[in-house]
């Protein structure tokens, strides 16, 4: 907050002074009378009171959550006990674009409500940032400027993608889920039909098959099991423009995968590797889904100055977890994290979003060096047993996940 006298005070003072001085010099009332309204401004504003106070309340939004492209309304109340010329300006983040003016000038006495309509153009968890109130007395002689930090986060979701495929089971948990276990036991998926052996429970005998074949037959099934999935999000860079950026793809994919696996009774954890590491431990349930989604929406590329803590592996990572990383594989820290997790025995699948084409001014040599470097990173990971699936522009996540299932099915030996 700051308060000061405005240009008007000093000019009215100078004009009044000049009028009186000329009156004295000319021994005439005329010049003083000519400038008398300016002296009147000082007298009137002083009588009304300088530096009037006003306050802004915390903002309200018509919805705390929205999807990209939605329109929202942010309402703010301002109040003052004395009449004051109030200039209110609301500062918004880049992902909320105002469709009505964000600044209002009004004579405030009592309480007034001000609303701004905004379009949520990009995903994120930002809200109105500041309300800047400039209060002047009626004639603008004195001024008080105050800033009010506004806390009303609006969570803007990217368009959701519905997934049917699951990341195939690597190490199962002894809890019922949607994954077909490679073991045999009570379940819904047919494993095999075989003759009855000594020791089999009698109720395993299948009556129709037994009647058809003339000998006791047993139907073996695969039990339905759940697993642990950890989503690794690479927020060290965001390449692209507008809505076609790698981080947006990453967040969209992570949200869809998290939602699908939590629906399948899997425990889902989240690692955000950027300039530092954020870790959300693997848990179950709808409440945890909200935590995962909220954490993903707050993902952002932090500047090097904001934090630079290096990679440290999470301490309570489930040993059986499959890691699904979504990364363009450019950050050294992400590569280090993937190799470290692989060395701990985790199965790692990397979905690599396509990067935008460079501009025309980028030289051919620079493009080639960049491409070769990226391919080397990818090959280096593949040599360490990491499955890297490129995700080209235009491919749906479902299509990419089917490729994941196909590739894993080929590499794994049935038990």
């Amino acid at each position: 907050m700051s308060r000061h006298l405005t240009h008007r005070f000093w000019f009215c003072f100078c004009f009044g002074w000049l009028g009186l001085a000329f009156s004295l010099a000319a021994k005439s009332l005329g010049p003083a009378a000519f400038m008398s309204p300016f002296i009147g401004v000082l007298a009137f504003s002083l009588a009304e009171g300088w530096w009037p106070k006003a306050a802004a309340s915390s903002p309200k939004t018509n919805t705390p959550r929205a999807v990209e492209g939605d329109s929202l309304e942010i309402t703010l109340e301002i109040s003052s006990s004395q009449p004051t010329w109030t200039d209110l300006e609301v500062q918004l983040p880049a992902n909320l674009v105002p469709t009505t003016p964000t600044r209002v000038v009004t004579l405030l006495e009592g309480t007034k409500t001000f609303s701004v309509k905004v379009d949520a153009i990009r995903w994120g968890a930002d809200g109105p940032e500041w309300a800047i109130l400039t209060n002047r007395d009626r004639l603008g002689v004195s001024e008080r400027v105050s800033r009010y930090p506004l806390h009303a986060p609006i969570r803007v979701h990217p368009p959701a993608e519905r997934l049917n495929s699951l990341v195939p089971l690597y190490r199962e948990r002894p809890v019922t889920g949607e994954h077909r276990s490679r073991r045999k036991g009570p379940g819904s998926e047919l494993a095999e039909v075989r003759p009855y052996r000594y020791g089999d429970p009698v109720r395993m005998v299948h009556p129709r098959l037994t009647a058809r074949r003339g000998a006791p037959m047993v139907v073996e099934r695969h039990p339905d099991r759940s697993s642990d999935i950890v989503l690794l999000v690479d927020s060290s860079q965001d390449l692209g423009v507008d809505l076609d950026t790698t981080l947006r793809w990453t967040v969209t994919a992570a949200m869809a995968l998290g939602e699908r696996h939590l629906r399948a009774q899997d425990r889902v954890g989240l690692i955000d590797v950027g300039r530092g590491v954020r870790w959300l431990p693997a848990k179950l349930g709808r409440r945890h889904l909200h935590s995962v989604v909220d954490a993903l929406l707050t993902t952002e590329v932090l500047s090097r100055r904001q934090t630079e803590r290096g990679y440290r592996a999470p301490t309570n990572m489930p040993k059986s977890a499959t890691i699904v990383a979504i990364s363009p594989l450019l950050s050294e820290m992400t590569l280090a994290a993937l190799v470290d997790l692989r060395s701990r025995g985790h199965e790692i699948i990397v979905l690599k979003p396509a990067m935008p084409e460079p501009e025309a001014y980028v030289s051919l040599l620079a493009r080639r060096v960049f491409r070769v470097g990226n391919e080397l990173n990818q090959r280096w990971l593949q040599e360490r047993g990491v499955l890297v699936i490129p995700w080209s522009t235009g491919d749906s996540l479902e299509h990419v996940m089917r490729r994941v299932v196909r590739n894993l099915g080929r590499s794994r030996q049935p038990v």
Partner: protein
Amino acid sequence: MSQLPSNVEPNENELSTPGKPSRFSDFVNWWRLRAVRLADPETIVSTIVVAVLGLLAGIGGGIVGMLIVLVVVLAIHMVTVESGHYLMLWLATSMLLLLILLAFATIFPTVPAVLWAVGGAIALAYNELVRINFARRRQAIIDQSVFSSSTIGVGAATLIGMIATGVAQVLGSGSDRNWLWIVLAFFVVSLIGLAIAIVPVRNATAKDKERFQPGERIPPQPLAKESIADL
């Protein structure tokens, strides 16, 4: 956000420097924007005031003199409205005071004190109108209450000035105007007292690096990363 360049072709319109029309359509848009700004009610009224006073002030110089004065004063007025700078506003107000002086000197051989006060009030009203126009910058909504409040303020200031002038005229009639010394002394002493009271405040804010500059972007507050445990 974007570190690597994208495959988006640059728009031809984006290549032109903002504010400098490079093609006919840009040229038309540039003038259309200015026409919208000049169509605000307070701008229209202030332009009419300036034009009328310019014509009245130039009466002594004949038609050519009137036109020259009109062109000059309108140019200063337009530059003031376009620049949005308070120093220009006070330059324009000073110019208006001079125009009123010239008009009075040309039209009235002897001007009564109350008419001088009316002249000053016209200049103050002009100043207030342009101040309201300045407040429209950065797409602000101007509430109707601002106009009525300003009218009350200017009216009250004029009334105070006129009453003071009237009182001074009554007190000073028939004497050698020594009362002006008393008025001046009172004015100086009261303002010095105020200045002493104000200087610490003014200096404090002037040194305040966080003082808000209109239109600047303040860095946002960091959001609480709830539900994420930092390692």
